[in-house]
């Protein structure tokens, strides 16, 4: 496979197509629109389906239909659009339909702006929609990961029959970096539960309704067991210079790229700083952060939100060590300088 220089928003589509994605249903929204553009360009060439839906709501319900038909299907949106999609995501989770949703988070609340934020963490990670469900959430911090997670998301979605969200921000979507493309996926899992308009699948029903209280309770318990297995087996994270770190900066997405540079600067001054980056926001790497409490004396969450992920960091730390927060909002990305200053202040 070749190497190509491209935007994160385009890389995720190419990764998805290499993963065997054959359908895209979406609605335009900045800063996620390039995903729809790339899907409109490449999916039909690859024998797939692209439809610009009449709304975000229609788009996610088309995803529901395509996933019910056993297709590898994706959609993408941002902030307000994801809000509209959450009902449909809940239906997908309830009916156990695998699908991939890319969120290129923008500034909120309300119409906000089109700059990068990480303010939709709770929406994406904590369910967002109604009911006791979770989605696997992958947080890329490079264009390469946008492509790679495009592939990984479909595998995880099919493996667990669950929606998977790729949670990026406007920055990761808009930036360009070289990508080494992986080989196309050739073997796909069987989906005997899907409906395809065939004799074999005639017996199947795709539904999230369970009228009987006990039946719905059993269904919920089954879902919770699935999420427990995901928490046990699918935690992913990256550590940077944490071995001897006295302060650990916890961050994801674009913030982690800035933090990485800040760590190098701090280390050059002899300050033992390290970075911990959750790659899966659900399942969150609680256990590893808890272990890191034995080494580090302080944690600092660097987050482009009011500390939505910081709540999870504090749950992991369980009060054993101080957890600090450095927030930015409104489309502003932390500067290396302000991260540096905050660490100096904490460690002094």
């Amino acid at each position: 496979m070749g190497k190509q220089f491209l935007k994160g928003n385009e890389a995720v589509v190419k990764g998805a197509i290499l993963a065997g994605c054959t359908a895209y249903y979406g609605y335009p929204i900045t800063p996620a629109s390039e995903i729809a553009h790339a899907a409109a360009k490449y999916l039909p060439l690859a024998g797939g389906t692209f439809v610009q839906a009449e709304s975000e709501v229609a788009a996610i319900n088309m995803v529901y239909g395509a996933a019910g038909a056993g297709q590898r299907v994706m959609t993408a949106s941002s902030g307000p659009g994801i809000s509209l999609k959450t009902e449909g995501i809940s239906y997908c989770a309830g009916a156990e339909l695998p699908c991939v949703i890319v969120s290129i988070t923008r500034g909120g609340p309300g119409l906000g702006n089109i700059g990068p934020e990480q303010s939709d963490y709770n929406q994406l990670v904590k369910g967002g929609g109604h009911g006791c469900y979770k989605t696997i959430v992958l947080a890329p911090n490079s264009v390469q990961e946008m492509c790679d997670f495009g592939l990984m998301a479909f595998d995880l979605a099919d493996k667990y029959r669950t929606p998977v969200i790729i949670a990026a921000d406007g920055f990761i979507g808009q930036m360009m970096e070289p990508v080494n493309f992986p080989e196309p996926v050739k073997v796909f899992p069987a989906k005997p539960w899907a409906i395809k308009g065939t004799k074999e699948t005639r017996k199947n029903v795709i539904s999230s309704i369970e009228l009987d209280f006990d039946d719905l309770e059993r269904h919920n318990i089954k879902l919770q067991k699935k999420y427990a297995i995901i928490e046990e087996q699918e935690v992913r994270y990256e550590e940077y210079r944490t071995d001897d770190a006295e302060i650990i900066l916890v961050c994801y997405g674009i913030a982690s790229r800035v933090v990485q540079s800040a760590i190098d600067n701090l280390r050059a001054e002899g300050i033992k700083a390290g970075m911990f980056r959750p790659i899966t926001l659900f399942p969150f790497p609680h256990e590893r952060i808890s272990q890191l409490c034995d080494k580090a004396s302080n944690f600092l969450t660097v987050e482009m939100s009011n500390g939505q992920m910081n709540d999870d960091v504090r749950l992991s730390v369980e009060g054993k060590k101080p957890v600090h927060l450095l927030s930015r909002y409104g489309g502003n990305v932390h500067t290396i300088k302000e991260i540096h200053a905050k660490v100096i202040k904490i460690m002094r």
Partner: protein
Amino acid sequence: MAKDILRKSEVFYDNFDRKPGLDKMTTTYCPGCGHGILHKLVAEALEDFGVQDRTMFVSPVGCSVFAYYYFDVGNIQAAHGRAPAVATALKRANPESIVIDYQGDGDLAAIGGAEILNAANRGEGITVFFVNNATYGMTGGQMAPTTLIGQQTMTTPKGRTVANEGYPIKMSEIISTLKAPVYVERVMLGDVKSIRKARKSVRKAIQIQIEQNGFSFIEVLASCPSNLKKTPIDSQNWVREVLQENYPLGVYKDISAKFVSPDKSKTPVNYKDLPKVLNIEETNIDKNRIAEFTNKQFHEQFKIAGFGGQGVLSLGIVLSEMGMRHDFQVSWIPSYGPEMRGGTANCSVQLSSKNIGSPVVDRPTVLVAMNRPSIDKFEDSVAENGYIFYDSSLIDIEPQRKDINIIAIPATKIADDLGTTKVANMVIVGAIIEKLGIMSKDVVLDSIGEVIKKQKLININKRAILKGVEFIQNLTK
């Protein structure tokens, strides 16, 4: 005609095992409800046409949410109002399938207005059965968009008024204004005669999907005795005598005689062809040609700024693309936020021999200034011993810094002499490559054709790069 009307259609399950509770023989529908009759007409048609295995039935939210208890076909239940969206994707995933979209009046005409209108407008090859009984059945008799003026419901206790709720929506009339639908008819389940007529319409609608892959819409006036608070007989009379008065029966559109579906076939692509389709085939750069550059340790951070239209972003992309061809770590990011407005643009590019952390450039080692505001804005941010390349044909001031290298290059003039102002950015690319010495000129010139999309512009871009190279060479002579 079905062969034996006393027999339950094969398309119905013998026992409704999916239904909770002990009674697996009767439906969830109230006595006198229209759904039972319409279910029967649909099931018999599917059986007679021999398409049971191919059929997928989309159950909506509403009383027919449990259609999958009864229909022995592929079943999927949809969110409130979204059945046409679900049906769209089902049909497109399996174009040979028969997709039945079955909806009530609240589902289709209120919360799902956008979905039905747009599925119809796209001409999806599906069959829609729209049950209009002028009320919300399942939620307990609230006003529907089709509730009649004066009709009492739980949410119009004194009767629907024009002043507060507006007029009843006439969906068949609306759908028939669209170009794509093939067949739109309103029928009723008002007496034996009208049911027989409805049967014909149901069959025709399904047949249009089977034979012509066309969109059909059958509105079925039906009774809801429980919420009308009438006996089954009285409520059927009401459908015939009152509802029909307000919703005239008839064919609103029928172009089936001459309809030919647009070609919706897709060409499947072998995975081996995917790299070509996605434009990600192996690129071959001779490692020997870049060898002398790949061992250098460096990290250059570029801020490239100017007016929109000066090719500022593409200057950054060309540098990045060339960096990638030298196996460097590379990142490019456009300016983001308010400064994009007002006609100025900038981008950050990094080329490095090691991993790039933050792609944001706050302290550039190289500033490329294509206009005066760029000097004003970014001169102070340039790192010590860094560079400013500026277009001296457009900028009438000189940067003041003494601790950096300042290269004034009349890029626009050089470009104009070549015949087009547009390649001023490439003149600067040439100057940067020559001055910094981090890339092979030959590789850049040989691969510029992979980056410049328009074939006829490749040569002039090459010449502009060479002019930039020569300009630097002449400076240092």
